[in-house]
């Protein structure tokens, strides 16, 4: 049973020196670390219960199937889906969004509009560009107000017209830290008969997320951004939408009948899980859900939010710095900034010398960067094991960097 007091002990990767300094891992927006219980859950599964799922009647296969379907039910509970069948396991957020764009999106037609926002990650942007090119649908964007990084909802009425068939947006911006009013956006989409697609990559592991309270049609997230391994993630979809969608990938496990020239499909979720799924990491994802729920996601949200506010406040006091994202209280667990005299890459390389892991660049938000007149920012992103002391280490490091290049 994890506890907030000893939480750092749970993560083996944190206990190392980098360039002679204790590691300060502030790159959680890219991927979080995994607690030993998650690593062990996968190892134990492989050492005891490993067999292919679904098609087997022998003991190991039945155990593996129970573990895999148990993981599906656990993930459904984690986001309060109505049924396990509403969870499709994927490689992660990107594959989840490609699945919706390719399968649901195949019904789009010339004249239809896909509404996105200017703060979308490439993974919630390029799949829609691809389907737009295929179907003749058009893209439209909700603007971002500027450095403070809010969606300009004053123009939403003009943008959210009846031609809009899909409204896809991020829950928490991975660059700005903005938390979008997703329930409101979903309701607005519903009013014009559009489906809503929520990119929850940065939120599901960081705060309570309830798909029924949000009222979304689809929601996508990645295990590796919530203390689980890579190669696993999920797409939540409302059952009646999923069952009306054509398959995307074809292969073993998703078929009801295969003939040489025609086939029929199973219902969701199997229809969308062609081939051997990543059941090993699904078991790890379920263990991560247990881990995060034992700590409490409301507390997690508070923890990350407080660190982000503290960092924002201390960084604001530095000279020649430009901070992105909302200045007020409510922000996701990250801060993003640009120093006027030092390029983001030089900041990251120097901080690494102090044992600090930061990310510099466009954070897969090229069009937003371009709009803001930036080529990149430095991002510090927090998770449950980060501390206020680590922010002091960060600030001291940035000061040294500014001095060196000053």
């Amino acid at each position, binding site marked *: 049973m994890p506890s907030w007091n000893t939480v750092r002990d749970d993560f083996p990767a944190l206990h190392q020196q980098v360039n002679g300094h204790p590691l300060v891992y502030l790159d959680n927006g890219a991927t979080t670390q995994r607690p030993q219980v998650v690593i062990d859950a996968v190892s134990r599964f492989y050492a005891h219960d490993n067999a292919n799922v679904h098609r087997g009647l022998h003991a190991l296969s039945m155990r593996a199937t129970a573990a895999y379907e148990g993981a599906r039910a656990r993930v459904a509970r984690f986001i309060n889906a109505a049924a396990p*069948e509403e969870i499709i396991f994927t490689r992660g957020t990107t594959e989840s969004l490609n699945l919706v764009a390719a399968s649901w999106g195949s019904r789009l037609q010339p004249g239809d509009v896909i509404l996105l926002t200017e703060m979308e990650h490439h993974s919630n942007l390029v799949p829609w560009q691809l389907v737009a090119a295929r179907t003749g649908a058009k893209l439209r964007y909700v603007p971002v107000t500027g450095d403070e990084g809010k969606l300009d909802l004053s123009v939403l009425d003009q943008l959210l017209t009846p031609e809009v068939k899909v409204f896809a947006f991020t829950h928490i911006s991975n660059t700005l830290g903005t938390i979008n009013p997703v329930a409101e956006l979903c309701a607005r989409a519903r009013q014009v008969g559009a489906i809503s697609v929520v990119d929850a990559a940065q939120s599901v592991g960081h705060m309570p997320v309830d798909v029924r309270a949000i009222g979304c049609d689809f929601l996508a997230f990645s295990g590796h951004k919530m203390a689980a391994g890579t190669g696993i993630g999920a797409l939540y979809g409302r059952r009646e939408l999923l069952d009306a969608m054509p398959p995307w990938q074809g292969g073993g496990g998703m078929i009801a009948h295969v003939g040489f020239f025609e086939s029929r499909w199973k219902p969701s979720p199997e229809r969308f899980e062609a081939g051997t799924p990543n059941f090993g990491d699904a078991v790890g994802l379920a263990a991560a859900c247990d881990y995060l729920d034992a700590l409490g996601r409301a507390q997690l949200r508070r923890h990350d939010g407080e660190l982000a506010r503290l960092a924002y406040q201390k960084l604001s006091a530095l000279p020649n710095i430009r901070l992105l994202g909302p200045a007020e209280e409510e922000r996701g667990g990250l801060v993003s900034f640009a120093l006027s005299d030092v390029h983001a890459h030089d900041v990251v390389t120097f901080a690494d010398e102090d044992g600090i892991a930061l990310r510099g660049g466009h954070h897969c938000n090229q069009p937003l960067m371009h709009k803001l007149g930036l080529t990149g920012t430095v991002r510090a992103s927090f998770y449950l094991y980060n501390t206020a002391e680590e922010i002091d280490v960060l600030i001291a490091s940035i000061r040294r960097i500014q001095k060196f290049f000053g």
Partner: protein
Amino acid sequence: MSADLTELYQQVILDHNKRPRNRGRLPTANRVAHGDNPTCGDQCSVYLRLENGKIADISFDGSGCAISQASSSLMTTQLKGKDAAEAASLYQQFHQIVTTGEAPEAISDLAAFAGVHTFPARIKCATLGWHAALNALKGDPIPATTESRLD
């Protein structure tokens, strides 16, 4: 042989598997439905003659394991003379038996399938024929499938 396995392959089941009752295409049928289990490729067709809302005659056909064959065979003996509501209620009881191992009192040979509940992967085998029969009663032309994830 383990107790569980003996319980699964009861004499009644082995007997129905070897000598299935009401097997083949019922020439006088006015309702038919097909069921399949995509996971294993098993198939079952159920043919009925409905008269005044009651099952006047019934047969089954197809291929499958001992459990599914015996279950379909036994089912046909139980459903003859029943109306749709009675058939649904009998299926409820059968479903309880195969999922929990608990047989309601005074239930017929269906209790022979109680052993299935310790082999969850075989529940789909036991219910394949029943799904087809209930679909046939509804006059539903869609193939029954035990891949509904609900048995």
